[in-house]
């Protein structure tokens, strides 16, 4: 009798595990939006792959633009990564893909970003995207800039997302950098997510992107 129970439980366990495994992508609540900055464009979410860019294959919402001015020599991914090192963003993450258009054609930029917790126990994580992997160029207003997604990583595989909290946390870090100007809820990014669970992902985003101007 006991042997039969163990056998049945083993079958249940194996079935449960294999039905639960292939979960990597999230689904946006609303259709994807292409945002335009004086001719440049980017999609308001990043994606879990670099071939299928649909509402059901997103990872996180784009929430921040880092930009400079004409006198700013370097607003690029490495500069921003280096600046946030002092805030504890010292660990790399796995590669996710942003869709951007800087020169008239759409390209995909893969980025692992930086996060504050190697074990994803209670960490904050951002990723940066630019058409050439360095920065984008808008001669009109934003000049050199990159776009960012933000989320929290908590208890590996059990709880992540919380985009709005992560955005706020990163903006608080940005305020502490000399000369950086923070514009919270700067513009409508069209990626509003009412608080909801999607598996391990906790969506919560007000749909407004913020902007950070570097000196």
């Amino acid at each position, binding site marked *: 009798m006991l042997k039969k129970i163990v056998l049945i439980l083993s079958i249940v366990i194996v079935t449960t595990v294999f039905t639960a495994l292939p979960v990597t992508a999230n689904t946006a609540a609303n259709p994807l939006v292409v945002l335009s900055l004086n001719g440049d464009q980017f999609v308001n979410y990043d994606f879990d792959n670099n071939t299928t860019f649909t509402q059901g294959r997103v990872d996180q919402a784009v929430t921040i633009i880092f930009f400079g001015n004409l006198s700013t020599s370097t607003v690029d991914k490495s500069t921003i990564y280096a600046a946030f090192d002092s805030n504890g963003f010292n660990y790399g993450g796995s*590669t996710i893909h942003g869709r951007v258009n800087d020169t008239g054609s759409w390209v995909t930029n893969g980025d692992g970003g930086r996060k504050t917790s190697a074990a994803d126990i209670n960490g904050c994580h951002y990723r940066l995207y630019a058409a050439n992997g360095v920065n984008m160029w808008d001669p009109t207003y934003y000049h050199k800039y990159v776009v960012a997604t933000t989320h929290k990583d908590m208890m590996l595989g059990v709880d992540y997302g919380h985009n709005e909290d992560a955005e706020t946390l990163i903006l608080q870090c940005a305020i502490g950098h000399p000369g950086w100007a923070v514009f919270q809820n700067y513009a409508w990014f069209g990626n509003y997510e*009412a608080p909801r669970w999607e598996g391990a992902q906790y969506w919560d985003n007000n749909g407004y992107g913020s902007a950070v101007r570097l000196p």
Partner: protein
Amino acid sequence: MGTNRNVNRKWLRPVAFVASIALLIEIITWGLYHYEGGPSWVAVIPLSIYVVPFIGCLIIAWKKPFLGGIVLIGIAAILIIYSLALGLSPTSQPALTVLWMRFSVILPITFPMLITGVLFLMVKEAKHL
């Protein structure tokens, strides 16, 4: 009578051992697949932070089945409680949906862990028959 039952349950120890190895493989696979972006080398370091102590727990279970069983059941219980507590975050979803979401995330790991823990407890019990 007692000796007979003891002999009949000798298979429990190898079963518990195999179950614990299967659990370890499952945890590694589950962790890799649930890591953002899917399986990659980047996931190895964060995953090892969880897996290495867990291997320690399994070694305890192989040497001291009762203690190991208690530890495995304890870890599973903590994970279930933690995951369900997260479900208390504000949401517009019905409570049952949230409950199902949280269980669907955590059960593939905790259910086999509970079963393996119980198996180790039974190994201890069989020894004393």
